[in-house]
């Protein structure tokens, strides 16, 4: 909310400087997010009077000015200057807030000595359609910044919902500032007490939607323009002056927080009803939008239908215009929830709606009516004696029962009951001591304070949050953590150590891509931001493949990424979340350079997985050919530790890669974090070998179709404990190896824990191995 410093000054009279005020407001809970200075930099402009105005061209006028010290001639394009008008004049040499220095200019043969200024050029408002017309009593020749009190300092205050109820108005902000400064609180206008007879439309109101509706008749006399200070405050607050009577209703709303709605009385047909909209009922609001209403939206309707969307915006039918002579003025209370939900659904965040949505004090409509009655004569209007009321003013609940010890304990500040009473009084609360307890009554403008903790908060704000001592809490034992959290961090680090960079993807993705990866979406978003964020991911691959595309498109060929995160599965009416860790590898290991770039393949990824799982103390791995639809059917494996399934790895299916527009081979792995954690072991030390090892090489020829894993299994079974390690060092096909066969060369390390193995032991072992390989795998020694 925009809060002009000068308005606060007008209410509270004496104030410290703007910087100090900004700090005080922030400390009070009204965070000043930005301080702007309207009209900063304007120099040399003055007040002048237009003496003669003559038309130069259809769109240019020549104005003879008197400045009190002499005459000047200006050319202006603004149509609103008339003889006798008091105008802001910037002579040659003056500087505008945008940095321009004015000189002489020539238009159609007429030299213009500087220019006349619009509100926009002065820097105080958005209006650039015409010259800013000043009041007739403005002293000629006076410096303009001095006359207008520029620069106009405006605070941009962030209102939290708790302040939106009582500080969405200048008086509310002024009260907070007064409390911080120890000044008496401005109470605002007293309630209006109208005679309830007169020529006013009758009103009926549904009390569940509109507990109180006040109406008055405003009559136009000898109308005068909106006072300059009102215009300036509207500008500073971000509103645009329009028509005097409308400007005043906006001014009162900004000042007091009560939105008021003026209807052109002559355009209302019969009495007024405040009622729920009928489903599908339509209204064209002042912004020209036809809005379809729902049951529960509140409308103001006359005999012919809705004339306003209550508390939000009027319609064109009863809009006040420059020639309106009689106005029906509404000051009401509407149910905050109804306004809030209509505001959300219709996307209509008008100034009025934002105030009604937070709720208003019961006596505010009557106070705002009285304030209007006070101000109307300034524009040559007045409030006629008649008035109408529907509903009753809601009464505040009784005092709040508060234990001062509770307040003291909750805040941790040593504050006795007397100090609490005093602190509350600073904010306009009355607190009476009732034995050991306090009976606290909020001021009329605070309808949000109802419970002892609300009162504690007010006490804290009043004494100042800086009064809080700094005391560390008493020691409590730390509770056990879910082991998966720390393990997730450790697992990522294990892959990072192997050269993978940690990536982060959205967990919302395009269901089409999940389908393409053979992992269709199981949970979809009802109100997605876009189609590519419509489903909860069922795999981390979708995000990693997107990352591959992103990096390839930027010329990056070496890709090694890992990601840890959750995937989502539907389980009946519930959603199950699973922590996973995934890898993607593509291109080469290291970029082009002096050393050969290592190109990556299936076995790079497999080796990386084996190494990382080794770092995580996960052993007993086996890789079993699998049938994942996202992967190349001949280049993928399920990863197991013992018989626990950890996940899958392999090459991205070429057809899927083509669909995703990825032009190079990509390898993927995805593992379940919970499964990894389940099979992780505590390392056990074993005795170091005491006897030497024997090393023997063995080469066999087998059918191509026999997997190495099978040979290894047979070999291990045949050699038992003596086989310490087997290393495959060559796989060969082609002549002299017969067609359909392959030759495998292994280096075996044999060692016994009991004795030194002899040459004869080694020979016997090899013979045993060959026999088993021959019988079970059809292998022959080469």
């Amino acid at each position: 909310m925009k809060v002009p410093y000068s308005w606060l000054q007008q209410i509270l009279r004496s104030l410290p400087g703007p910087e100090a005020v900004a700090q005080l407001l922030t400390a009070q809970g009204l965070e000043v997010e930005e301080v702007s200075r309207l009209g900063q930099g304007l120099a040399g402009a003055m007040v002048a009077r237009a003496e003669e105005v003559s038309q130069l061209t259809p769109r240019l006028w020549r104005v003879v000015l008197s400045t009190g010290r002499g005459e000047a001639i200006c050319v202006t394009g603004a149509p609103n200057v008339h003889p006798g008008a008091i105008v802001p004049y910037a002579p040659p040499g003056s500087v505008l807030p945008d940095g321009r220095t004015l000189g002489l200019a020539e238009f159609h043969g007429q030299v213009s000595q500087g220019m006349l200024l619009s509100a926009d050029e002065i820097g105080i408002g958005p209006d650039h359609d015409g010259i800013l017309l000043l009041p007739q009593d403005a002293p000629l020749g006076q410096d303009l910044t001095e006359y207008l009190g520029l620069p106009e300092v405006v605070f941009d205050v962030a209102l939290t919902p708790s302040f939106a109820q009582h500080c969405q108005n200048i008086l509310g902000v002024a009260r907070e500032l007064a409390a911080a400064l120890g000044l008496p609180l401005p109470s605002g206008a007293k309630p209006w007490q109208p005679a309830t007879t007169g020529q006013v439309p009758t009103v009926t109101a549904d009390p569940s939607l509109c507990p109180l509706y006040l109406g008055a008749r405003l009559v136009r006399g000898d109308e005068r323009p909106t006072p300059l200070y009102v215009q300036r405050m509207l500008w500073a607050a971000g509103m645009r002056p329009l028509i005097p009577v409308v400007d005043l209703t906006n001014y009162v709303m900004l000042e007091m927080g009560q939105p008021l709605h003026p209807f052109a009385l002559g355009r209302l047909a019969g009495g007024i009803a405040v009622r729920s909209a009928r489903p599908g009922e339509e209204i064209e609001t002042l912004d020209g939008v036809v809005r379809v209403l729902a049951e529960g939206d509140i409308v103001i309707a006359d005999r012919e239908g809705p004339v306003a969307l209550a508390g939000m915006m009027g319609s064109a039918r009863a809009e006040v215009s420059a020639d309106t002579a009689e106005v029906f003025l509404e000051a009401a209370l509407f149910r905050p929830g109804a306004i809030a939900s209509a505001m959300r659904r219709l996307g209509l965040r008008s100034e009025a709606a934002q105030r009604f949505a937070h709720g208003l004090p019961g006596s505010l409509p009557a106070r705002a009516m009285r304030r209007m009655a006070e101000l109307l004569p300034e524009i040559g209007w007045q409030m006629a004696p008649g008035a109408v009321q529907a509903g009753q003013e809601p009464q505040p609940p009784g005092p709040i029962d508060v234990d001062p010890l509770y307040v003291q304990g909750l805040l941790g500040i040593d504050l006795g009951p007397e100090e609490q009473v005093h602190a509350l009084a600073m904010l306009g609360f009355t607190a009476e001591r009732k034995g050991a307890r306090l009976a606290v009554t909020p001021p009329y403008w605070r309808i949000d304070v109802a419970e002892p903790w609300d009162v504690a908060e007010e006490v804290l704000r009043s004494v100042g949050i800086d009064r809080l001592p700094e005391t560390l809490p008493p020691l409590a034992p730390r509770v056990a953590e879910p082991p998966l959290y720390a393990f997730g961090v450790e697992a990522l680090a294990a892959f990072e150590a192997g050269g993978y960079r940690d990536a982060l993807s959205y967990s919302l993705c395009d269901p089409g891509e999940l389908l393409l990866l053979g992992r269709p979406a199981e949970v979809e978003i009802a109100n997605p931001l876009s189609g590519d964020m419509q489903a909860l991911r069922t795999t981390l691959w979708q995000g990693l493949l997107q990352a591959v595309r992103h990096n390839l498109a930027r010329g990056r060929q070496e890709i090694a990424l890992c990601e840890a995160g959750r995937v989502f599965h539907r389980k009946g009416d519930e959603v199950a979340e699973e922590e996973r860790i995934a890898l993607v590898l593509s291109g080469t290991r290291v970029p082009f350079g002096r050393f050969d770039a290592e190109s990556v393949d299936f076995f790079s990824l497999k080796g990386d997985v084996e190494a990382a799982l080794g770092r995580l103390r996960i052993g007993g791995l086996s890789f079993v050919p699998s049938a994942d639809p996202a992967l190349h059917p001949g280049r993928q494996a399920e990863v197991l530790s013992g018989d626990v399934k950890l996940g899958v790895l392999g090459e991205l299916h070429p057809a899927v890669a083509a669909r995703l527009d990825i032009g190079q081979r990509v390898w993927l792995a995805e593992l379940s974090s919970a499964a990894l954690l389940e099979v992780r072991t505590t390392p056990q030390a074993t005795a170091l070998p005491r006897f030497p090892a024997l090393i023997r090489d063995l080469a066999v020829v087998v059918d191509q179709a026999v997997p190495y894993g099978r040979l290894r299994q047979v070999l291990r079974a045949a050699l038992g404990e003596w086989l310490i390690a087997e290393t495959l060092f060559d796989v060969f096909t082609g002549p002299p190896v017969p067609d359909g066969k392959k030759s495998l060369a292994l280096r075996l390390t044999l060692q016994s824990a009991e004795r030194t193995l002899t040459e004869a032991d080694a020979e016997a072992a090899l013979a045993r191995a060959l026999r088993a390989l021959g019988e079970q795998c059809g292998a022959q020694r080469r």
Partner: protein
Amino acid sequence: MAGSSVEELRESALAALAAATDLEGIQAARTAWLGRKGPIVDALRSIKDVAPEERRSLGLALNQLRDEIEATLGERERRLEEEAMSLRLAQERLDVTLPGRPRAVGGPHPLRMAEAELVHVLREIGFSVAQGPEVESEHLNFEALNIPADHPAREMQDTFYLSDLPGLLLRTHTSPVQVRAMREHAPNPLRVICPGRVYRRDDDVTHSPVFHQIEGLAVGEGIGMHHLKATLYEFARRLFGADVRLRLRPSYFPFTEPSAELDVGCPFCGGKGCRVCKGTGFIEVLGSGMVHPHVLREGGYDPARCTGFAFGLGIERTAMLHYGIDDVRLLYTSDLRFLSQFQGSEA
């Protein structure tokens, strides 16, 4: 053999040694002169043929000659070895400014780095990590946290709902984990932090529809706002440095009352006011407050006996401030040019 013949032997030995200029020659000379078949051993062997009174002096002279030859050879050998070593070292000189053999460099994501730092500091202060689901019930995300259906705060957090799963949503904050942790541990005292992913229907330079928060909660008997202040200040000083300027400012959250926000002195301008802090000299880092009695009751604690405080902050925001990142979306594109800026720069 007489003294004169020892002298002759010496002269011819020295003459022969002078001709030995490489390691092989030296080895040959050593064998020829000092070997078992060499003249000195011969002479020593024949010492028994000499008159007994000359034996001693002859033996002495021969031993001296042997030592002299050995010393001369040894000296020359050492010099040759030194020369050879110098030559080798000179030949093996490398251009050490050539690039090292590149390794595939991995590393953590800046967001994870920030999360790890926050978790580390908070664990040191005495909090334990707790976790909860990202798909949360509407009740735990809102009602249990004192945000009823028509509460204006629901507008502050535009929510993703799920198709065909009424009552479920993507959590808009990590606060529901507070309630879950309380329900698990009530009525015992509790101190937990909840880092995790949250979701809001928002997408621009500073808002991402998916982001991360970390939430802290302390509940027990006699917990007051002075404890909150000390905890937050301790946390901020460990995170930003002992001399950081700190400010607690009243604020509003539906699930805490009283509520406060913690600001730290703007690290970019030192508090003078700049674009980042919008001229205020401070940057907001976290929201906090005393747990609302409604929330305590939802968590299974009796608000008449137990009180608590809670705080929460955005991890993206912390990472962006800490590492000077100006667009939140960079954190989610997995651009390797970006990721490699944070650890292990590449050749």
